[in-house]
Structure formats: C-alpha cells, structure tokens
C-alpha cells in the first residue's frame, strides 16, 4: 500500500514536470462512450470474449517526446460485459473478479520504450508500467500505438478546442498471476487473457 502511494506521488510529480516541459494531460473519461477494453480467452471447451467501457484516468503526453508518457488508466470492474448474462454474474462473483471488493482495475503507465514514428503523429512502442487487478500488482509491457490527433477535439466535442490521443494496443495477462480463480476451470476459462486497448484521451486547450 505504501509503495503504491509512493509510486502515485512520484507519477504525480513526473506528470507535473512533464506538463511544465510542454506536454498535455489527456483525460480518458470518454463522454462519447466509445473507449473500450476488449478481452479474449480461448479454452478447449469455450472461448470467452467481452468488453469493458467504464474507463477513466489521465495520461500526460508530448508528441515531441512520446517515450516520456506517464499516467494511469482505471477500468471499473462492473463495466465488464459478455454476451451471456449468467456468465457476467459469475465473472462479478467472489471467486472470479470479486467486483464488490475490487471495483477498479488500474494500469500505471511509467513510460514507453522503443518508440518509432509509424506515420505523422502516430507512434508505436512498448508501454511499460504496472497493472493492478484484484489488489495484485504486476509489471506489464504492452505493444501500443499512440495516435495524436492535433486540433480534433472539436470533432468529438463540438465547440471545444484541443487535441485527441488515441491509444490502441494489445497484451496478455495470466489470470493466475492476478488471483482470478487460479488453476480452476481451465478447460472452460483459459489462463491467458488477451486484452485489447481502444482508448481516447481528450486535452482541452
């Protein structure tokens, strides 16, 4: 708990320095409700796919120095959706995600390595940070693409001026690493969870 507090303070300080240096803070609470996170689990008996759209958080990003991006993304556990209502009830239950006790999942972004400019304003790289699910924190690396849409805020939020930051990417986590019913029902629920990111950040000028 203490380490998380220290990390949060350090991230906050870094964010402040970064903003002062010319970056902007992008708010990931998407009013257009398009942002989402997808997940896929392929087990021998059944494949499970779903989404989560309860996304919030902020990332500091400077297109002149994308590797220094910092911030955190929070996803509410209750926003997880799957095509079967009963399955969703199971996912929210104590043995699985325990949504009442652990209402949020958090990703702390600590920087991006190996950044290459794929196109004008689009950067590819490996996001490094820490993922917290069900109170368990693990280091995570995710291949991401950050697309900086300068001056496009008005297209999403009419009457407002600013930029958009589109973050897409994919990574795999193991459910046993995050204490999600470890070792149980592996024939129906795969251990590997493939997570896809489809996020939009808003920065008003």
């Amino acid at each position, binding site marked *: 708990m203490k380490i998380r507090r220290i990390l949060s303070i350090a991230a906050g300080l870094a964010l402040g320095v970064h903003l002062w240096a010319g970056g902007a803070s992008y708010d990931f609470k998407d009013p*257009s409700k*398009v*942002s*989402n996170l*997808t997940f896929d689990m392929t087990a021998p008996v*059944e*494949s499970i796919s779903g*989404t989560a*759209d309860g996304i919030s958080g902020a990332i500091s990003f400077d297109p002149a120095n994308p590797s220094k991006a910092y911030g955190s993304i929070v996803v509410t556990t209750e926003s997880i*959706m*799957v*095509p*079967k*209502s009963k399955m969703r009830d199971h996912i929210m239950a104590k043995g699985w995600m325990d949504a009442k006790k652990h209402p949020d999942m958090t990703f702390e972004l600590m920087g991006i390595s190996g950044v290459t400019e794929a196109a004008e304003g689009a950067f590819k790289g490996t996001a490094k940070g820490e993922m917290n699910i069900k109170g368990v924190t693990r280091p995570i690396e995710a291949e991401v693409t950050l*697309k900086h*849409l300068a001056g*496009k805020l008005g*297209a*999403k939020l009419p009457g407002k001026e600013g930029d*958009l930051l*589109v973050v*897409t990417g994919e990574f795999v986590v193991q459910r046993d690493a995050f204490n999600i019913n470890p070792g149980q029902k592996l024939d129906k629920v795969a251990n590997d969870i493939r997570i896809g990111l*489809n*996020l*939009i950040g808003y920065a008003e000028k």
Partner: protein
Amino acid sequence: MTRNFLKISGFCLFFAGTFVWLLGGARAGFSNDKIATVRVDEITGIQQTIYEDGFEPGFEFLALGFLGFATLSIAAAFLEGRQRTSTNENE
C-alpha cells in the same frame, strides 16, 4: 405405428435443432442472451462492441437435436426388436 411416430419425431427434432443452429449463424459457442454489434468511430477509427438484449442460438441446439434423434431412433429400434420377438414367439 408408434415406431414410425418415434422415427419421424426424431428426424423432426434433428432438423429443427440444425435449422435453429444454422439460423443463429452456425456458431461454435453456446447460446447468448446478448447480441454484439461492432461499430467503428469515424473520427478515431476505434472499434466498439455494443451488447444489446437478444438471443443467439448456439451449438447446444445442434447437439440437442442430434441427441433427440438418437434417443428416439434407439427407442424405435428397441420397439421393433421387441415386436419381432413377440411375432416369432406367436409363430
């Protein structure tokens, strides 16, 4: 008469199960009570899946149709065998 009824019912179950499964898109998974619709945001190009109430029949319809067909066919064969035995005994 009963044997024929069982055989026809078995075929009907098999065809009904297969028909419902095909109608639902012949998916490999189990039935869903939410239908997923994929939309693409024009500005950002982000893909979004929206779940709406609805029913998508799954693989279990095909399996139940086949199971019904198999059960009724076995029952019909059993009745046929029993009838043949009683006919032989009468002769």
